[in-house]
């Protein structure tokens, strides 16, 4: 073998070694990150006396709380899946004007803090209370998790089969269930998982609407009796519930269906032009967008206009800048950990599976629990505590789960034969991942990053505890005013939050230019 070739091969091998090493390191880091709050909770839970734990767990109310939490989670998840899939299907299949705007408008609602969203609805209908009200509000605000995941999946669906189905005379509904569902199932499941974990950890909606879930019970324990041990026990219960839900999701997911052995990744889909279908689609889109976006925005606007208060432009600008920078750094950290975990998952690594599961498990923890865990650990490292770095890191820790799912499913959709071809053509593993897998998975990875970014922008409890002293974000400013019931003064900050969220959402939802280029060539 010529010396030169040998050297090149060794270099490549070494590179692969470094890559694997890096992937394992990142996955290990993810496991450790997720272990931090769990270790804190275990420590707190074991320091309490068995008596008070059993009083809390065994009282009749706890059963009610458990049942309410589970029912609410199930119903909201189901509803969000229905709404989200229909929205995504319409946005992908029906010929709609201003598609990009509609797509963005159906995703932006997740940028509105749950508390503000619920408050807007309650202002409109002050009698709004209880389980079904919470169900409605939560479905509206979580459907985008499913919409976004399904849209990313639909972009990768192999439409050649679809054409076959159409030729064979299957109606759209049958085609949907026979052709589309199997191909988008995994991503819909990932989106549904995010919805379920969101409902478990949500405080704003359930507190305002008076629904007793675990998160509300935990928060009451902290507020009322500063009982951190019992709160920790309840939090661990919440972790257990989320573990069950996560394992359910992984069962729904099927690996065999994930990959298409097609070389042609995206065959162009011909949108439906039927007038009736278009009308129904417009109605559905308009209803969803007005209930979940237009209505809260209009309410905020009217509050702002009806009680003219002087707008603090300097404060608004710096809060916007702070919000964007902290959330962006957090999203970048999160994705740089989620990406290697996703790649390693494709190789069936156990460590990556553990990383995936543990990151998801802690995602169901209420913000106040995560915040306090990071306070307990962070305050021991004086130079790091209450710095922008720790804040961004906590965002990464809190919301990494939102990215891991998207990255995992996006990478899984990359056809294996393309990876094989790439290897046959002499590309090493690093090059294959960089040149083939990641570009093909880009839409999924981007939407994952967006989810983390949007969630981090509106995060409140951990932000209040971990931000540098005096560092105001849009979320903390909204809280500053809503805590003393000044909604008109909070309104400009809430509106800015939605506006800032709209920009990346809009950009990511533009028709994928690379795809168009590929299709037209």
């Amino acid at each position, binding site marked *: 073998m010529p010396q030169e070739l040998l050297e090149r091969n060794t270099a490549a091998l070494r590179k692969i070694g470094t890559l694997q090493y890096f992937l394992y390191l990142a996955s290990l880091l993810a496991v450790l990150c997720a272990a931090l709050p769990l270790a804190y909770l275990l420590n707190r839970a074991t320091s309490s006396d068995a008596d008070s734990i059993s*009083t809390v767990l065994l*009282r009749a*109310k706890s059963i009610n709380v458990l049942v309410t939490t589970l029912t609410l989670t199930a119903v909201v998840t189901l509803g969000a899946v229905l709404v989200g899939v229909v929205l995504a299907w319409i946005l992908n299949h029906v010929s709609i004007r201003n598609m990009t705007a509609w797509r963005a408008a159906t995703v932006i609602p997740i940028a509105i803090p749950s508390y503000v969203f619920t408050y807007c609805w*309650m202002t409109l209908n*002050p*009698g709004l*209370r209880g389980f079904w009200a919470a169900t409605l509000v939560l479905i509206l605000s979580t459907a985008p998790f499913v919409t976004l995941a399904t849209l990313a999946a639909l972009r990768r669906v192999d439409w050649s089969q679809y054409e076959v189905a159409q030729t064979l005379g299957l109606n759209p509904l049958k085609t949907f269930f026979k052709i589309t569902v199997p191909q988008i199932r995994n991503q819909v499941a990932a989106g549904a998982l995010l919805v379920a974990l969101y409902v478990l950890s949500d405080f704003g909606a359930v*507190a*305002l609407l*008076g629904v*007793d879930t675990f998160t*509300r019970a935990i928060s*009451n*324990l*902290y*507020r*009322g*009796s*500063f*009982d*951190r041990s019992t709160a920790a026990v309840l939090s661990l219960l919440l972790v257990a519930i989320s573990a069950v839900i996560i394992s359910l999701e992984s069962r729904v997911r099927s690996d065999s269906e994930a990959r298409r052995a097609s070389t042609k990744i995206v065959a162009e889909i011909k949108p439906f032009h039927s007038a009736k279908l278009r009308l129904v689609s417009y109605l559905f889109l308009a209803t969803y967008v007005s209930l979940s976006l237009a209505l809260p925005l209009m309410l905020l606007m009217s509050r702002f206009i*009806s*009680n*003219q208060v002087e707008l603090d432009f300097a404060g608004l600008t710096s809060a916007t800048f702070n919000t964007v920078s902290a959330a962006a750094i957090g999203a970048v950290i999160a994705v740089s950990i989620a990406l290697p975990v996703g790649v390693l998952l494709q190789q069936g690594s156990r460590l990556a599976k553990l990383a995936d599961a543990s990151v998801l498990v802690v995602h169901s923890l209420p913000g*106040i629990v995560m*915040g*306090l865990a990071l*306070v*307990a650990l962070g*305050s*021991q490292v*004086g130079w790091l*505590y*209450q710095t922008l770095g720790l804040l961004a890191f906590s965002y990464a820790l809190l919301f990494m789960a939102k990215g891991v799912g998207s990255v995992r499913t996006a990478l899984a959709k990359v056809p294996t034969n393309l990876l094989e071809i790439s290897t046959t053509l002499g590309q090493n593993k690093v090059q294959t991942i960089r040149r083939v897998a990641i570009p093909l998975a880009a839409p999924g990875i981007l939407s994952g990053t967006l989810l983390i970014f949007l969630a981090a922008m509106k995060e409140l*409890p951990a932000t*209040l*505890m971990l*931000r540098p*002293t*005096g560092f105001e974000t849009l979320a*903390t400013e909204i809280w*500053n*005013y809503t*805590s*003393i*019931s*000044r*909604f*008109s*003064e909070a309104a400009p900050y809430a509106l800015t939050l939605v506006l800032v969220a709209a920009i990346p959402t809009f950009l990511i939802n533009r028709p994928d230019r690379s795809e168009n280029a590929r299709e037209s060539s």
Partner: protein
Amino acid sequence: MKLKARLVGLSTLILASAALISGCSSSPSAEESLTIYSGRAEEYIAPFLQQFSAETGIKLDIRYGDSAALAAQLLEEGENSPADLFLSQDAGSLGAVSDFDLLQKLPSDLLTKVDAKYQSSKQDWIGVTGRVRVFAYSPERVSNLPKSVDDLTNSEWKGRIGIAPTNGSFQAFVTAMILNRGESATEQWLKGIQQNNPKLYEKNSQIVEAIDAGQLDLGLVNHYYVWEVSEELGRSIKAKIDFFAPGDIGNMVNVSGAGILKSSSKTDLAQRFIEFLLSDGIQKEVVNKTHEYSLVFPDLTPSGVPAFLEIKSPAVDLTSLSDLKRTQNLLIKVGLI
């Protein structure tokens, strides 16, 4: 006991050495500063803080948050807390921090400024302003004002009253009732309220808004919420407040207050700050601007509310408000939370 004494001795030693180290490391030219954890809303307190900085040249680093959440944060931080001072909206959150021995004993010249019943029995926190439980009502729909909280259990109030049972201020009031009347009497009262199908809210302000919107006739709130909601809406609202008969437990007084962290090395500056909060000028401003009662000048009355000294609120040990476990258990038992 011995162990505790030793621990206290040890921590004092650690604190002293920490103070020494931090004292040595900070350059003398550095600007003097204080770190404050404030459960008091920025809107209400920021002007006073700016005034303090302007007058003394001391820089204030302020972390705003929910009083109870900040207290929980201080408990987690323990000795490592960067905070010098804790300002709280209610006595309970201060009490929780005090229970964990994280607050310093305050000097007597500060403590004498305020009636002893509005400070910690351990003398490690002090009340700054007073907030009173009242009832808010619709003058259109309520003509017979209740004389006592007990009246609200009468059937004439069925479906007409609102409470915020998860809210700290309501729970503090129930705790006061337990201390005053005992657990079983309080349970009776709660059951009576429960039988009247009260509307349940998360926040006091929602109760006032519901009265204004005509959905509720009367609700139990703190005295300043009618003013606060009408400020927000930019108009006068269709709700008024009033007290129960003098001495009724329904007129319980809670305080917002301040404490200095043991872990702080800036005791002198922190005391100066509390002195400022209790100074004549600030106490008078509080009455005018945030509609709270002054604890230094109890004869000053915010506009539109009854005089503080007429309330004759029953004696309540504010120090005992930090642990609401018994109260919460009772509320759970009755089914209100």
